């Protein structure tokens, strides 16, 4: 169990966390999402005992273990915490097995137990065949899996995974997500930050959105999608007629959504419900040639946009939820 109470942190004069409250139950995966610089890593660093906070409490524990306040007793809480930081952290000249064993031994496992656990973790992450390889010879995806595995050696009650799939290939990502799911099934409370929002959906995680130094929304993915995301309708034309203004306002959408006209691509993005497609088409100027209509289902990204008013930073790899296309 992880419970964060009124956590505040400033860097110099700049407040980053303005009173974060968060609870993650055993067996729960929480996708912590927010824009770059929102403070996700700061929360994790404080909760993992690596950084001090200005005020607040972070309780770590589970039903069978004592509960510790990380802020006041970070070393006692450390045994319950697993952390895979955002930046890769492995010993390049040690073998994968040695890298895993180091962290087992640091958690108090004997050499034999650490070796057995290393094999177990490697098996789960699809690294069993690479245990004898030095970490510097592993591929990027394998190194990322090893990096994650090092946080799992002592079966932590609370696991922080800070963008664990950055730079990982498809196989590595699948392996990491599989292990995260099985750890949650085993009772770990997991905080998972990512810019790949489809991963949060794939994990069946709950979502907490960090914005302006506070958690502005915490809910299940389904509840978030139904309350904050709409299907996206894109009307594709063969080009922009000269007299069409750059921005088109669709006043009959929910809340009167202002939508974007992309003349260079011949795209008119309308964040309107599907039933308004006809209305949108009617607004196209005479002579516009319709090439197609693309309807995208509600996405976590659009929900994030709706909640925060800004797009989350992501790269092309995150665009796995391609829209269904209906071409005219």
């Amino acid at each position, binding site marked *: 169990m992880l419970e964060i109470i009124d956590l505040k942190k400033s860097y110099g004069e700049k407040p980053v966390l303005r009173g974060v409250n968060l609870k993650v139950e055993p067996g729960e995966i929480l996708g912590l999402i927010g824009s770059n610089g929102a403070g996700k890593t700061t929360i994790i660093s404080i909760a993992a005992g690596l950084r001090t906070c200005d005020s607040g409490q972070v309780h770590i524990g589970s039903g069978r273990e004592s509960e510790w306040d990380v802020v006041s007793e*970070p070393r006692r809480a450390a045994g319950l915490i697993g*952390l895979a930081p955002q930046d890769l952290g492995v010993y390049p000249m040690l073998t994968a097995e040695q890298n895993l064993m180091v962290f087992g031994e640091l958690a*108090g496992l004997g050499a034999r137990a650490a070796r057995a656990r290393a094999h177990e973790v490697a098996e789960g992450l699809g690294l069993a065949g690479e245990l004898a390889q030095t970490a510097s010879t592993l591929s990027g995806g394998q190194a990322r899996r090893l990096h994650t595995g090092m946080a799992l050696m002592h079966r932590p009650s609370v696991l922080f995974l800070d963008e664990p799939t950055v730079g990982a290939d498809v196989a590595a990502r699948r392996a990491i997500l599989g292990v995260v799911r099985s750890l949650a099934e085993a009772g770990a409370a997991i905080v998972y930050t990512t810019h790949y929002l489809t991963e949060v959906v794939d994990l069946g995680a709950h979502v907490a959105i960090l914005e302006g130094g506070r958690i502005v929304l915490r809910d299940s993915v389904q509840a978030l999608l139904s309350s904050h995301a709409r299907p996206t309708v894109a009307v594709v034309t063969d080009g922009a007629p000269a007299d069409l203004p750059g921005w088109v306002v669709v006043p009959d959408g929910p809340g009167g959504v202002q939508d974007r006209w992309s003349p260079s691509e011949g795209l008119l993005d309308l964040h309107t419900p599907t039933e308004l497609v006809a209305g949108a088409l009617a607004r196209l100027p005479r002579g516009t040639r319709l090439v197609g209509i693309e309807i995208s289902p509600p996405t976590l990204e659009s929900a994030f946009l709706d909640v925060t008013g800004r797009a989350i930073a992501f790269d092309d790899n995150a665009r796995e939820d391609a829209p269904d296309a209906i071409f005219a």
Partner: protein
Amino acid sequence: MPFSRKRAIARTSIRILANDPAPTIVMIAMPLILAAFLKPAMAAQLQAQGFSGANGAEQVIPGLAVMFAFLSTQVVSMLFYREHYWGTWERLRATGASASDVMIGKAVPLFFVMMVQLVVVFGAGGAFFGYRINGSFLALGALVAGLVAAVIGYAVMVVAIFKTLDQAMVIGNLGGMLMAGLGGALAPAASMPGWAQAAAHLSPAYWGLEGIRDVTLGHAGLVDVAGALVALTVFTVCCGLIAAIRFRPTEAKIGTT
């Protein structure tokens, strides 16, 4: 649990050092190579000082061994700063490892590696250059251990103070060479100017080499070198205290050049 953390960090340090033995091999080979050049000149100098039977190895072997021990501070620096470069420093801290766990977990293996380094240099000095001692082996061993502890204490203090590997390497090496030179690693301290002889008392190399000289050319035993051992201990403790006060586990260090 805290002991298991120190042991795990020590085991990792040994594995890292074993995977990259080149610096240690260089620090063993270089004094022996240089000894071949410098031994005749040192023989003449010692004979001029009244040690008629001296062959030069009595000065050149301990002097160069100590000089390169001080240059080994860069091995200590690398062992700390690389953790930052590899991204493993934060991970160590997240396990609950304290500053003392990390310091002891790294310093103890380094102590043994540097002891081996010096023992090999002294042993090869005996085998190939005719280095012999008249005094107690126990006293020699205690002085070598005291010198190694002083070097590691100095190196850890440098790591604690400086933010980047470049700074630690430059300051560590320059400071180490200065202390070794002042201490009589290149020429007996007695042959240096008066001001340098006075300044030499601040150098642990001086106390270590004076003690070794007494064991080598005289007949000193453990009791006779007690003063030198105390001086080395005081230096080591002072460095350790400064390191403990200055060391900030949360400080982000730049671990590459």
